[in-house]
């Protein structure tokens, strides 16, 4: 006897805890198998690009915090680098080092969130695995509080350097974090990446080939998981990334498991970069003399950086006034959703949720 089935359209979201914000998936099922998938975005649109057009260059820094709200530091960095290219100003060396230290700490925090929510979405450990990741992230947020007085909406970087020098108590705190974090990463890896259940559910699920990933403008960990060693920190070093040594971890498979393996390896590389910066940093000014209100010469600038989620850049057009004429955000999370249908079709509902977790996108950045 054959069962007569018909496709069923199921809306997952916009308010679904696993969708990283308000993201709606229109999934068409045949039984439990996905036969069509459509992403619906726009629920978190706040018009950041338009708001930036009527604010002074310095004020826009506060808007960039709210794009990818789990990695505000790199958003700040991308914006101020574009502004500095526009104005033609060079920050002092200590400011650059502080920026790289802060940005790499932010990368560790963002990847911890990514790994934690991936496990949350696997449903393997309930909330425990997420809390493992949050425990380490909490220490990074404490360090950010010492640097700039805030934990999430940082606004630490300024055009021409950083806001202010790190306080004395920042350095011992960073030291103890650098000593502890490799052990935590080992523990996480032993607990999660060698777990049989995680391996059974993540290996080979929703693979993306290198050609597809490049064609879909994937950047960041999800591109490197497909085997393409592309990293803006190597390709066009900004700040002091040309002064430090690090590797770009890559994988071959491009499946969910590889995407997370790459993220854990990047955490270790970030710690390596911070170690070198701590050794190289010297006393000095942290901020170039720069007015809060300024008029850059007419022109345009785009400086891509390697944000935790991929290539992030602010395309700024100046008409010589106090506010940007146009501010376009090239956000990695938006591009990560390009292959949404191709990745999900053929897999089951449970795999769809896990795949979304492995893409590690952030709706604040997708909708802007």
């Amino acid at each position, binding site marked *: 006897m054959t069962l007569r089935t018909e496709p069923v359209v199921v809306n997952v979201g916009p308010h679904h805890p696993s969708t990283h914000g308000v993201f709606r998936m229109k999934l068409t099922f045949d039984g439990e198998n996905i036969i069509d998938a459509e992403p619906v975005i726009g629920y978190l649109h706040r018009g950041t690009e338009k708001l930036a057009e009527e604010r*002074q260059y310095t004020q826009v820094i506060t808007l960039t915090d709210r794009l990818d709200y789990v990695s505000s530091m790199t958003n700040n960095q991308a914006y101020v680098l574009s502004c500095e290219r526009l104005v033609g100003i060079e920050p002092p060396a200590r400011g650059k080092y502080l920026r790289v230290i802060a940005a790499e700490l932010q990368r560790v925090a963002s990847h911890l969130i990514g790994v934690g929510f991936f496990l949350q979405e696997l449903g393997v450990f309930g909330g425990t695995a997420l*809390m493992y990741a949050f425990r380490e992230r909490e220490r990074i947020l404490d360090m950010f*509080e010492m640097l700039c*007085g805030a934990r999430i909406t940082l*606004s630490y970087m300024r055009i021409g350097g950083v806001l202010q020098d790190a*306080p004395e108590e920042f350095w011992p705190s960073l030291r103890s974090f650098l000593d502890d974090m490799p052990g935590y990463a080992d523990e996480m890896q032993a*607990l999660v990446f060698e*777990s049989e259940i995680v391996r059974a559910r993540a290996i080979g699920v929703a693979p993306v080939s290198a050609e597809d990933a490049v064609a879909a403008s994937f950047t960041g960990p999800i591109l490197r998981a497909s085997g393409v060693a592309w990293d803006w920190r190597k390709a066009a070093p900004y700040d002091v990334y040309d002064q430090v040594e690090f590797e770009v971890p890559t994988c071959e498979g491009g499946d969910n498991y590889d995407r997370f393996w790459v993220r854990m390896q990047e955490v270790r590389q970030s710690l390596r970069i911070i170690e070198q910066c701590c050794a190289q940093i010297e006393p000095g000014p942290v901020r170039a003399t720069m007015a809060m*209100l300024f008029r850059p010469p007419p022109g345009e600038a785009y400086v891509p950086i390697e944000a935790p989620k991929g290539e992030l850049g602010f395309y700024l057009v100046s008409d010589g006034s106090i506010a940007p004429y146009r501010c376009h955000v090239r956000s990695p999370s938006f591009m990560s959703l390009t292959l949404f249908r191709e990745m999900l079709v053929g897999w089951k509902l449970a795999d769809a949720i896990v795949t979304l977790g492995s893409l590690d996108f952030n709706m604040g950045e997708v909708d802007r």
Partner: protein
Amino acid sequence: MYGAGILRGLGVTLRNLARRPFTIQYPEERVPQHPRFRGQEFTWYEQRCTGCASCAKYCPLGIIRIVTDPDGGNEQDGGSYKVDVFDIDQARCMYCGLCVEACPYDALHMGSGFEAATLRREDLVINVDMLKAREKRPSTWFRPQLERAKADPHHGDPVEWREAGREPFPWHPKRPAQTPEEMDHRASADGSYRSER
């Protein structure tokens, strides 16, 4: 075939049973805050403020409203305006600190609180009387002089206005009071200049 992994997982559970809990029971106990924490309870020193409204100008959201009394100070001699209205709408404030960064006379400082819940939206607006009456416990955010003096908004003493700035004196000291008769002309309330003679 999954037996070994489950046993290993239970081993991790057993090991963590002995660990100290990392969570903090928030309303009863609190995470220690750094003195640089930027939060509510803006601290404003009337004696340092010249009424220049730089804070209002650099606020990205435009939520600071300042009205100065044109007759309250001798603006043409480099004195300060008398601030009549200083409203900060904390309901819309995002505590970015640009107003504090913009203040050239170190008159406005960030505070340290973060629990803003009120029953009515209007209660979130701070006015000039509240700012005057408030205990002066400034955050050390963007104030290196307070950091050097080891000021702490939580455990330290209130900071007096002379200690709060980069210089112990206001940058634009007031000159001896002048009567309108002594001056050639002064600004009228609508902003135009008129001669007194």
